[in-house]
């Protein structure tokens, strides 16, 4: 088990390097540069050159990449060119907000998603199943920025229950969590349903029925336990995606967070900040995947046995 863990962690290193290279290159091949945003009316070409030198933008690309990577490895994310302060400060200010939003959204989609999935599986092919799966499909196909605006219109403008935007009170968290959570709910509900139905057809379920256990007890105690293995894996994978998916939602609801920081920095071509944000999001996906694998190994006795 431990050797498996170590192997998985070591495998992250080349993935990390590849991801960092892609992030770096994509950004530098986008036309436009941060100096344009810094130059004022009246600046001379010399001022431009000076500023490029100050931020190391006059170096060849491979050198810039090498310097950046070695600093990142030492935990130094550099200094923001436009915001002009350590990138780590900006990230640390934004990250807790994104984690809170993502965490609650994940919690919402797991609890509601598993609940709906079980309900649908228990009523397979009957109307509750069709209603839940239909509703879930609708929820997952709505773009989040649009869903956010609709929720805002209903719950803030018409009903006046929640603030329109911001992060000034805990109640302001409700609509953004719903916006992100609803999308995830669809996926979780579908996976739970399929896994439940699939597990119901196994031999051990027939045996349990033969032993005379009540069908509901079989479903909730035994089948669900089996079915949760893929669900938990999917949820772990969602960790990274939820942070990434929060980008537009944060902007719509004017919340602080990695998404708002990323969008703002992208429009200013503030490379160090954009690189750090993308790296954070990529790391979240990588760690989520790792966590999914580990959880799967821990939960599934067959995988555990195979690794031992």
């Amino acid at each position, binding site marked *: 088990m431990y050797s498996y863990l170590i192997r998985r962690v070591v495998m992250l290193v080349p993935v990390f390097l590849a991801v960092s290279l892609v992030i770096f290159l994509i950004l530098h091949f986008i036309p436009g540069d941060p100096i344009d945003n810094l130059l004022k009316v009246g600046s001379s070409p010399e001022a431009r050159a000076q500023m490029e030198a100050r931020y190391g933008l006059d170096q060849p690309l491979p050198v810039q990449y090498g310097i950046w990577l070695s600093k990142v490895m030492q935990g130094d994310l550099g200094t923001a060119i436009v915001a002009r302060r350590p990138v780590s400060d900006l990230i640390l200010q934004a990250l807790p907000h994104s984690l809170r939003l993502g965490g609650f959204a994940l919690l919402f989609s797991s609890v509601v998603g598993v609940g709906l999935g079980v309900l649908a599986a228990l009523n397979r092919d009957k109307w509750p199943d069709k209603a839940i799966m239909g509703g879930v499909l609708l929820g997952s196909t709505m773009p989040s920025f649009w869903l956010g605006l609709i929720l805002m219109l209903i719950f803030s403008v018409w009903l006046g229950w929640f603030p329109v935007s911001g992060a000034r009170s805990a*109640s302001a968290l409700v609509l953004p969590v719903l916006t992100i959570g609803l999308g995830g709910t669809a996926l979780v509900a579908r996976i739970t349903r399929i896994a439940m139905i699939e597990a119901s057809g196994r031999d051990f379920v027939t045996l349990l029925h033969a032993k005379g256990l009540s069908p509901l007890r079989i479903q909730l105690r035994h089948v669900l336990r089996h079915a949760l293995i893929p669900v938990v894996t999917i949820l772990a994978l969602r960790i990274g995606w939820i942070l990434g998916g929060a980008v537009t939602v944060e902007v719509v609801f004017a919340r602080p967070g990695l998404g708002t920081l990323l969008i703002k920095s992208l429009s200013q071509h503030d490379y160090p900040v954009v690189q750090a944000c993308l790296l954070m999001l990529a790391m979240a996906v990588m760690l989520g995947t790792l966590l999914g694998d580990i959880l799967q190994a821990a939960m599934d006795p067959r995988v555990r046995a195979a690794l031992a």
Partner: protein
Amino acid sequence: MTISIRKTLLTASVSLFALFAAQAVSAQEAVFVLNTSEVGAPTYNPIKANNLNKATTLIFDRMVSQAADLSFHPWLASSWEEAPDGMSWTFHLKPGVTFHNGEPFNAATIGPWLEAFKGSENAYMTEAVASVEVVDDLTVKFVMARPEPNMLYNLSSSFMSVIEPKSYAALGDNYGVTEVYGTGPFKMESFTIGQETVLVRNDDYTWGSPLAKNTGPAHIAKITFREIAEDSTAFLELKTGGVDMLLGVPADLLSEVKKEPNLAVVTLPGQDVYYMPINVTKAPFDDIKVREAVAKAINQEEILASVFGGVGAVADTFLISALPEGHVADSAKIHFDPARSNALLDEAGWVMGADGVRAKDGVALKVSLWTQSDSIFRRLTEVVQAQLKAVGVEAEITTFDSSMIRDQYKTGTQQLAVRSYDWDNADIVDWFFGADRLGYPNISMFNDPKAEELRKAAMTGSKNMAERVANFTAYHEYVLTQFPMAPIYQPVESVAYNADRLVMPAELNAPVVGSTAVMDMEVKE
């Protein structure tokens, strides 16, 4: 209706979220939303900032204030004299002024303040000042390295907000982020970058600009400036009473705002000009006749009415109309004149074809027309395209992402473009038409020996303000007669507020809704 929404909001927040901070704002407290262009301004350090938001103008005072007609008036400087040769300025400072941290504002403040500009992003603001002499406790003399007719403009700019030098030196990069001390009517209580800034009233304040009626402490006790990047979100906040004022309302939301009975709009002349640069190096625009023809094919009145709903004004020079340098000879102003446009194209040998497109020597008059992806530019550019078509010029529109179009201009391959700039000083003519910046900012690739001579005189050859105005007017006028661009439109700046909550001053003698307006503003109790 409004009251019931707020009641519901209040009841809901009390009953459901009693534990959470209440959203309702109490008396003499207000919530403003910053203009989207100011979202993410990273610091309140005026010396090192590229982008400062409106809250800056309440934390700091400036030496000189600027009225609605862009004329200059006393503020922290009660009066000043300029030497006839422009080589020195003497400023008399207002007595009894203190900074938020208790330090006095006097002649000793000025030297270290100007010194801090050296090597900073805004160094050009004070470049012309060689040294500062303290004449007495309340009098300073700027000894100039060269005349700087722009001195008063610079001193009225928010980048020359007067900082407190001791804390400025002690706090380093934290000045303007964690703490900031000015002499302004409000003190910074907290600042979260990209989110909000909370300001509280400076109760000791008695030295406001004479442009406001109230020169003592402000009526409003606490202001929260929120940063909301999404315009529709900001509008919904205003509509539901979550905020009291939006400091920038985009033109397309204006009609929505006007539908709400409790909301009111203040409009002020904007500082933007929409125009069509013409690349003078690219055929057929290397022929001045063709340039004049396309410039005079633009129907500014029609654009004002159809694209901008009649809000704003037509532009017939390169500068905003409030600037004195914009008062050029009538013959230099560029107006819609289809007859002249057609005649010029005929003269230049471009003959109208049966398909409505002109041609010369078998080549059709087809040109490229660039613009940026924002919806307002796309709409405007389509109208420009149709107007060019009316005189037989076929323009093909290419749309670039707003953040990337500058790099495209740098290639110098553009022919026509539709864009805008935002600036309130005549030196913008130098910025966009100076021969040392071909491509971008000089999108027109304009490089004319006579213009360069006039430019030099305007930029460095003026001893005082009057000379500078004359020199820039001459330079501006000459540039117009060479048609490197066609002026189109000047927007207004719109501010929307909740009239159930705020009382706006009846008259506002300032170029923008900023500190002058806030000094006279009240919250309805």
